[in-house]
Structure formats: structure tokens, C-alpha cells
């Protein structure tokens, strides 16, 4: 098992080799996925939800599935564009993480009594989130590495990270445990995006301007999606603003202004 202090003592090249490896991923997920079935301890009892609570949770989970499918298609499509072996291997670990997130959310929908999750996802998906997905797919199809990594590993992951963290505070015990495992994965994905783009921004100063344009296009969709999700979760208005700020702070860490 890697000691984090030991990893950070490595020279930059060995650090990249280590943290982008299957081996690193393998050791990381062993810590929090062992003894979990579909993201939670199997002995946790199903909570008693009112019909309205259940219905709102189903809508939120359906939209999480849309986001995770976008991330799965995005990360897998980017493997072909990735500039080197290490980024390809890291993205492969992200692909299986995103596939797992999709699977555990879908499984949660089944446990909540949704018989045909695909139909329900289709019915309840937010048009803004669908639009975000289309824009991300277009960046991947254009093989635009910088913009696609920014849209996927910074914007989409920061949106998911902030939403899941907020939701975990209000969720039933099973959903909370599922979300906590996913948040740990998202942290790794955001770290990769920031690291990769941070290095490229140092060497290509004009890149910042281009990423700003991507951000200007995607921010309204993200903020509207967040608002919809928080409305469904009935989060108090003051806390909703905190979430918006948390998302914006995560995106601005790279110095890409909106």
C-alpha cells in the first residue's frame, strides 16, 4: 500500500508514473470498496421514504446517471486522444470508476422500485444536462484534448463532486454510503484534470483564453443543473448558494475565469 507522504517525495517523473498507474488505483479503491456491494454495506436496511421523497430521489438519481454516462463516454473517448501511456492508463481507471458509478446509481434505482431504469432516465433527464453531454461529446469527437479534459475532469467532475457532497449530508444511509465512495473517486479525477491542465497552461499561455470560452459556454448549464438537483433535494436556499460557490471555486483553482 502506498504511503501518501512517500508518493509525494518522488521526483516529478516517478510521481506521474506512480499516481497514473493501475497499481495506484488498485491500492486506492481496495481501501474503500472492499466489503461493499454496489457501493454500500449489504447489511444496511432500506430506509422508509414517503412517496414524494422517493420520487424526488429517483429524479436526482436519474440525472446522476446521465452525468455518469457522459463521463463514461467522455473518458473512454479521450483514451484515443491521450498524449502518452500514463494518461491513457489513468483514463482507463477513470473509465471503470465512471462505469461503476453508473452501475451503483442504476442499482439504487432498482432498489427503489424503478423497474426499467433506462426508460425512467430518458423520461426524467434534465434538458440542460443533456445539452452539457452533447457539448462534451462534441469536444471529444473533435479530439480537443485540453478543452475536453477541462469540460470533463474539471467542470463536470467539480459539479458532481459539489453536488454529491451536499447530497450526502441529506441522504438516507444507503445513498450516503454510495455517494461517499463516488466522491473519493471524483477527487482523484479532478486531481488528474488540474495536474494535467496546470502543466499545459504553464507552457501554453494562450490556452487559458480558450478554456475561458469553454467555461463561459458550460457554466450556465452547470449552474442550472445544480439548481434543479438542489430543488429536488429540497436543500435550503442559503445552502444552494454555498454549493454554487463551491463549484465556482473548484473551477477557478486553475485560474480560468468565467
Amino acid at each position, binding site marked *: 500500500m502506498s504511503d501518501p507522504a512517500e508518493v509525494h517525495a518522488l521526483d516529478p517523473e516517478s510521481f506521474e508514473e506512480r499516481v497514473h498507474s*493501475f*497499481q495506484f488505483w*488498485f491500492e486506492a479503491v481496495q481501501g474503500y470498496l472492499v466489503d461493499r456491494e454496489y457501493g454500500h454495506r449489504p447489511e444496511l436496511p432500506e430506509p422508509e421514504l414517503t412517496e414524494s421523497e422517493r420520487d424526488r430521489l429517483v429524479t436526482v438519481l436519474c440525472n446522476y446517471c446521465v452525468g455518469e454516462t457522459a463521463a463514461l463516454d467522455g473518458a473512454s473517448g479521450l483514451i484515443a486522444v491521450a498524449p502518452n501511456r500514463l494518461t491513457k492508463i489513468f483514463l482507463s481507471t477513470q473509465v471503470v470508476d465512471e*462505469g461503476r458509478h453508473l452501475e451503483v446509481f442504476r442499482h439504487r434505482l432498482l432498489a427503489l422500485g424503478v423497474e426499467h431504469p433506462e426508460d425512467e432516465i430518458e423520461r426524467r433527464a434534465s434538458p440542460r444536462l443533456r445539452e452539457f453531454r452533447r457539448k462534451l461529446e462534441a469536444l471529444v469527437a473533435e479530439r480537443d484534448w485540453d478543452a475536453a479534459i477541462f469540460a470533463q475532469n474539471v467542470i463536470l467532475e467539480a459539479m458532481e463532486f459539489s453536488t454529491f457532497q451536499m447530497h450526502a449530508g441529506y441522504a438516507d444511509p444507503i445513498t450516503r454510503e454510495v455517494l461517499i465512495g463516488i466522491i473519493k473517486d471524483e477527487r482523484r479525477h479532478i486531481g488528474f484534470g488540474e495536474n494535467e491542465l496546470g502543466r499545459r497552461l504553464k507552457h501554453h499561455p494562450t490556452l487559458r483564453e480558450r478554456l475561458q470560452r469553454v467555461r463561459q459556454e458550460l457554466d450556465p448549464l452547470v449552474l442550472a443543473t445544480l439548481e434543479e438537483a438542489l430543488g429536488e433535494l429540497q436543500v435550503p436556499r442559503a445552502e444552494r448558494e454555498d454549493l454554487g460557490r463551491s463549484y465556482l471555486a473548484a473551477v477557478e483553482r486553475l485560474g480560468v475565469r468565467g
Partner: protein
Amino acid sequence: MADFLSGYSIQYWLESCPQGYLEETEYGHKAGVSESDLILGDDLLREQAIKVTTQMVVGERCALAASSGLINAAPDEAAKRFLATQTLDEARHVEIFTQRLYDLGVGKNDLESTLREHANPNLVKFAEALLEKVEAKDFIPGVVGQNIILEGMAFSVFEMLYAGNQKLNPKFAQTLAGTIADERRHVGFGENYIGALIKEQPEKRPEIEKLQKEMSYYMLATFADQFRDNDARAELETMKKRAVEAGGEESQGTWQGANLAELDPEEMEALLASTVLGEFKTRLGRIGLEYQTPAQP
């Protein structure tokens, strides 16, 4: 389809692979095990090991590109999730075989030039034929090319290498054992999932059969280069002699009922080719395709 695919879930994969046969391994083998002294101490054997491992990295890079590229083209979400596990399996194979090159003394800065120098041109053409379908998002031929042809070839080659290395080089044999377990799952998915899709789209058959014939030819040409080329043949004979001197007549194990130490290179090539082609025929038959005999290189 959905029920069958639940057997290929990520939960199942997590329990059987990272939390199953890969537990307590590092780069696919037990911690602390190293390459055999026989190989590290003999320039010819080490060079040959680098050449063989290069082909494995080339094949696995192709498999990684194919499985990840097919996710976007998959017709349903369950197939996407299976291909996600396959993507990470293939990335792991790229990583462990690359690590083997480092263990054999290839410098990190020399990796790409080593791969370029030793990659078999026919294996590269084999990969290009498959990746053309993947690029075009042509899902059914892509999955047949990847999960039946490429994986079927890898499965048999790795099994033969495993038999040959079990006694002489346990570290490499352990690395291969985990890879073989992965390949078995991938081939199983190809067989089980694709049959139903081909029934729905029978017009795809000629295109897929043409791809199988083309990829099979490049595979046979790769084998011919490895076993029949005069230099390669002489090297193989010398290697076998040294392995027998080091480990005895039984040192190279048996595969498909044959003692590998007793086979000459032509016999080894014929055994490998007939085994792989036989498997193709059986598996293609199971999914409703007619095996096409490839031209002989």
C-alpha cells in the same frame, strides 16, 4: 440480454479480479519475485524476452484502444459497463508488460524506440485492421475483431507462454496467469453478447467474415515471422537448448498435449496456428458466423 449481462457487472469484476485473483499482486505477480536469472544472465535469452514482450505490449495497446473506442458505440448501457472493465483490464496488461520490459533492462527513455524496433509489422497490420472498424464506430465487427479474434489469439499465445515459463520463470508465468483469466472473461463476453446482435443484423455477416479472414492472415504471418524466419529459428533452437540445460527436458512444460521442449520451431508454429484457428472456428460457429480460411503466408 440484460440478465446475461448482469454476470459481467463491475461489481462482479471487482470481486473476481481486483479483490480476487489480483489480490496481493504487484504488476501482476507476487511481490518480491524477479525475472529468472537464466534470462537476465544470458544476452540472447534477454533479447528474445524483450522481443516477445514487445509484441505483447503492441497487442495490448491495440486492445486498449479498441475496448475504450467501442464504449461510445455500444448499443446499451450494460455493454458500456462491461467494456469499461475490459478497458481497465487492457490498460493493466499494457502496464504490466511495459513493466516487464523495464525489468528486462529497457530504459524508460528507450521504451518507445524499443517498441518501434521490435514490433512485428504483421502484428501492426493486424491491429490496424481492427482499429479501422473501431474508428468507424462499427460495433459488431469491432467486438468480433477484439473479443473473438484478438482476445482468442492472445488467450492461446499466453497459455503456451505460460506452459513454457511455469518452471523456468515463475514471475512471468504469474503475470500471464492473471492476464489469461482476464482474456477468458473477454472472450466469453464476445461469444455470449454478439450472437444475439448478429441475429438482429445478419447483413453484417460478410463484413465481419472478411475482417476475420484478414486478421487471421496477419496473425499467421506474425507467427511465421516469429518461428520460420532463419534468424528467429536459430535463436529459438539455441534458447531451447539453454533452457533444457538449465531445467531439464520437462522444463518447458506441456501444452495441448505436446512437450514444448521436444517440438522444433515449425512444429510449434503449426501447433499454435492450428489451436488458435480451431478456437476461432468453434467460437465463430457459436455466434452464427462461418469461419473463413485465411491465405497462408
